[in-house]
């Protein structure tokens, strides 16, 4: 019970930090407006009709999955910031288990990511993306899984960084290619074999594809938009999550004490 309290306290701290950061709050509203309305809207106007795609729904699902995944992953790097601000000392000398620290951190950053996508869903409804209450209900577990995947991926990345400046560089290096390999904005139904291989090892691919699998379910373009069945995507994500978590946590705990 006391570990649960500690996990909630660690998670609540991240949510509080987000709610007190006006810059991040504004970004959470402006970002989806730019991405869905401006980018999705212009793609729809120029390419939508000729390709038979709903590009607004396509970019919305892409950015929804990406935001949940990447925001949680990047949030995990605040463990790096904490270490630099020496706040990690407070966490690491407390009797809370290392696993609870990591879990609390992932839970907190996942909650922040979910709060960040709420304006995005609102924009999507306003822009008449066909979202039924059933879709939204199904998106809840998908969002949770996407965030946990991002958390595990962030934890693994955290172990390769020496400071938060390195973390920015790694993030540009690791996330930017995934935007294209996971089909964030443009479809990836046809890829050369080497890009297909890279795409298959990109966790973001499965997150985005799962989101699309839910939102495009029952629509005529489903088979042209969605790459794999939601069951396959969930299975791959669950497997990746477990592998990343075990390796990431072990490396993290070892690295914290074995300097």
């Amino acid at each position, binding site marked *: 019970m006391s570990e649960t*309290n500690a996990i909630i306290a660690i998670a609540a*701290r991240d949510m509080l930090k987000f709610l007190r950061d006006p810059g991040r709050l504004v970004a959470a509203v402006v970002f989806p407006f730019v991405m869905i309305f401006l980018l999705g809207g212009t793609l729809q106007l120029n390419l939508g009709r000729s390709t038979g795609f709903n590009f607004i729904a396509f970019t919305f699902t892409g950015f929804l999955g990406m935001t949940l995944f990447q925001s949680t992953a990047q949030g995990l790097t605040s463990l790096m910031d904490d270490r630099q*601000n020496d*706040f990690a*000392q*407070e966490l690491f000398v407390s*009797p*809370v288990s290392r696993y609870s620290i990591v879990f609390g951190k992932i839970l907190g950053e996942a909650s922040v990511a979910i709060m960040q996508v709420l304006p995005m869903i609102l924009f999507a409804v306003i822009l008449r993306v066909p979202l039924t209450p059933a879709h939204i209900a199904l998106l809840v577990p998908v969002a949770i899984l996407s965030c946990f995947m991002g958390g595990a991926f962030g934890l693994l990345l955290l172990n390769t960084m020496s400071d938060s400046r390195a973390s920015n560089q790694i993030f540009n290096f690791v996330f930017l290619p995934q935007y294209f390999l996971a089909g964030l904005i443009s479809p990836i139904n046809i890829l050369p074999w080497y890009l297909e291989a890279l795409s298959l090892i990109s966790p973001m691919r499965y997150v985005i594809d799962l989101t699309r699998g839910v939102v495009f379910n029952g629509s005529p373009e489903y088979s042209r938009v969605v790459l794999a069945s939601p069951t396959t995507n969930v299975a791959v994500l669950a497997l990746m999550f477990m592998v990343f978590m075990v390796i990431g946590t072990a490396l993290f705990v070892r690295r914290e004490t074995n*300097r």
Partner: protein
Amino acid sequence: MTDQAPLVDTTRADASAHVIEVRDLVKRYRKGTVNAVDGVSFDVEAGQFFALLGPNGAGKSTTISILTTTLAPTSGTVSICGRDVVDDASAVRGQVGIIFQNPSLDMNLTGEENVRFHAILYHLYPYRPLYRMMPSAYRHQLKELADVLGLGPELFKPVKRLSGGMRRKLEIIRGLMHHPRVLFLDEPTSGLDTASRRSLWQYIRDLRRRHDITICLTTHQLNEAEEADQVCILDHGRVVAKGTPRDVKAQLVHERLILDAVDRDGLRRRLRELNVPFRDDGALVIELNGRTAHEIVRSIEEPLTVLRTESPSLEEAYLRILAAGDE
């Protein structure tokens, strides 16, 4: 160097009731070329006030990090309250409190939120999102500690708006919340004004008296270590002296007699005749080295203009020990 015994060791071997036991502790950082801590051993009894002294880079903070489980030792063993810091780290963490050398507060939270976060991490109270929802025991405890350190409404301001001294007080309040059996104080009073420093030490004295808490202090303020039951001086990662402050001082620095006369040359001649070594330092300074001041003064007939004895401070003993280690 590794076989060198401490210059002074006045501790008595007593295996019972050691709340801290450090044996042959060695730490070499991954990219280090020398050992930051190089074969350190010491014991601290329950309820003692123990001070770890040494210049920058002596290995104090590394030792404290190992003792508080945030750093793994390269070799050697450390136990706190009978629990090994490596094998039973979680149990050790529940027994110790730490006031860090570097600020470790979350700047995005208020002072009270930082303390509440700590109290929940230490399993003292359940999580509640607001101060007013916290149990009254928490609110009382916080108020009592805040009163001692002179923090009032500032407690509810964001930490980033507090002064350095107030942040320090806040860290101290936080470190005492869970009534630790061993309290590690890593340079705890740096940044505090004299009044706050005094009230902090008064509170720590009370705490020791009431709860039999063991204090492990590292400090550059050597006057703070004068009250210690035991001091341990580190230099280049090794113990160069340990024992009570009085013993360490007595072993290394002796009382001195300071004399001067109108006829200083006459006084010099007299001291030479008496075979008493002295040095000219404004007045004539005589290290007593076991002699009594009376013994020397009664043999001097020259009228004196200055006559006084000086007892060394721990600081002088400390500087001499370090100087001896460098020779």
